[in-house]
């Protein structure tokens, strides 16, 4: 697929979410409307507004795979996409995650791939999972396979990985096989979803 196939929408469990849906879900927040106006006038204003999203818009679920604070942050970021790097750099864990989840909704091509690499270096399961959404289509195959295997190691359910079955290949199967062998040698279990993926790849 090309880089822009998914621009503007994210998938999760088959549901499509786009900025319009997120905006509609938060249409009752005058604070957000004012924030977006302020950011459109001065993109740097997002630095102080982005962290306040949870306190102003709440943190409950509002759309499949999206909480109110994440959605508000995606909407603000869409008004100043050039600020993504800076917001990620100075973000707390929730803000970083919101940036990662927003990436496929922004017209930025593959410019934010370094943010995925940063998130995948962490040991925070929430960041690693968020780095493997639709925007991970921009990761090269070696980095993507390492990331999938890292999920298995960290106990992150593999349904967090976008396009898993479409993208999983023989090289990933070999890595999962070696992982399963190591686990067997240690008398430890292989997580069910990893075993299932391995069976699927071997059987194909």
């Amino acid at each position, binding site marked *: 697929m090309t880089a822009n196939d998914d621009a503007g929408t994210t998938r999760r469990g088959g549901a499509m979410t786009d900025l319009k849906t997120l905006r509609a879900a938060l249409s009752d927040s005058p604070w957000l409307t004012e924030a977006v106006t302020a950011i459109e006038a001065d993109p740097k204003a997002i630095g102080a507004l982005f962290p306040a999203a949870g306190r102003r818009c709440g943190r409950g679920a509002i759309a499949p795979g999206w909480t109110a604070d994440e959605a508000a942050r995606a909407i603000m970021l869409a008004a100043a996409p050039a600020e993504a790097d800076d917001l990620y750099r*100075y973000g*707390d864990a929730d803000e970083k995650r919101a940036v990662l989840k927003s990436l496929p909704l922004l017209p930025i091509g593959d410019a934010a791939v370094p943010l995925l690499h940063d998130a995948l270096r962490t040991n925070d399961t929430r960041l690693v999972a968020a780095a493997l959404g639709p925007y991970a289509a921009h990761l090269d195959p070696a980095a993507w396979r390492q990331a999938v295997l890292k999920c298995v190691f960290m106990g992150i359910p593999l349904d967090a990985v976008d396009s898993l079955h479409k993208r999983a290949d023989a090289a990933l199967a070999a890595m999962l096989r070696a992982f399963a062998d190591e686990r067997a040698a240690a008398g430890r279990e292989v997580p069910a979803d990893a075993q299932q993926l391995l069976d699927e790849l071997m059987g194909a």
Partner: protein
Amino acid sequence: MRIFDPHIHMTSRTTDDYERMAAAGVRAVVEPAFWLGQPRTGPQSFTDYFDALVGWEPFRAAQFGIRHHATIALNPKEANDPRCRPVLDLLPRYLAKDGVVAVGEIGYDSMTAAEDEVFARQLALAIEHDLPALVHTPHRDKARGTERSIAVVSESGIDPGRVVLDHLNELTVAAALDAGMWAGFSIYPDTKMSPTRMVKILHEYGMERVLVNSAADWGRSDPLLTVRTAEEMLAGGFTKDDVDRVLWRNPVEFFAQSGRLDLAGKGEAEATFAGNSILRGGS
């Protein structure tokens, strides 16, 4: 027994400590930004440290069922190094975070002119960001340092009820309470304050506006001295409700003034969902 440790440097502690703390009843902590054993030489090592205080450390704590908040500041010792000073311009980014419940630790180390300036400037940041302030009183020349801290705080215009003077002792507690500020006590194995002395202070000065912490860090210290103090209070004639007041309700009241204290945050459930790179010894 539920314990809120309002001052502990978890960055320096192991998962064994988290495990023992959780088992002993510690359910919430505040981690103030402070100096490390090794002096820093530039703003970037501060920002990496602040990132950990609002990122990795709350995640680690959540895996043991402990809520973690932070206070952010340029500490007084490193305020004296001009190479570190530019971090002051980056503080507003961190003072805007959900998990940041005060400006701190600010105050004095050696009572220099540089410390005066940085202390006053950060009290102004506390007012600007509508946050309480956590003031470290110096270990050397403490009585004079405490008096001078009270003067600087009063001059800043911040409401004294939104300020805690920390590491107090028998000789400095009265001044802090008389000034309308909160009185913080750090219970250490053999220096700052002990559980027995703490109980005497509670008998003499009462429980209002008193915070008890372990201040455990990279030095010889013990994250369970809050619990030991609670036990000493019970042995010394205080009730279970008194213990709950001093070791839970008081710190909640103080930090709730930030409007950001979240004792049932979503981070906890979600960090445990996918759980457990640390518990399993994972990646």
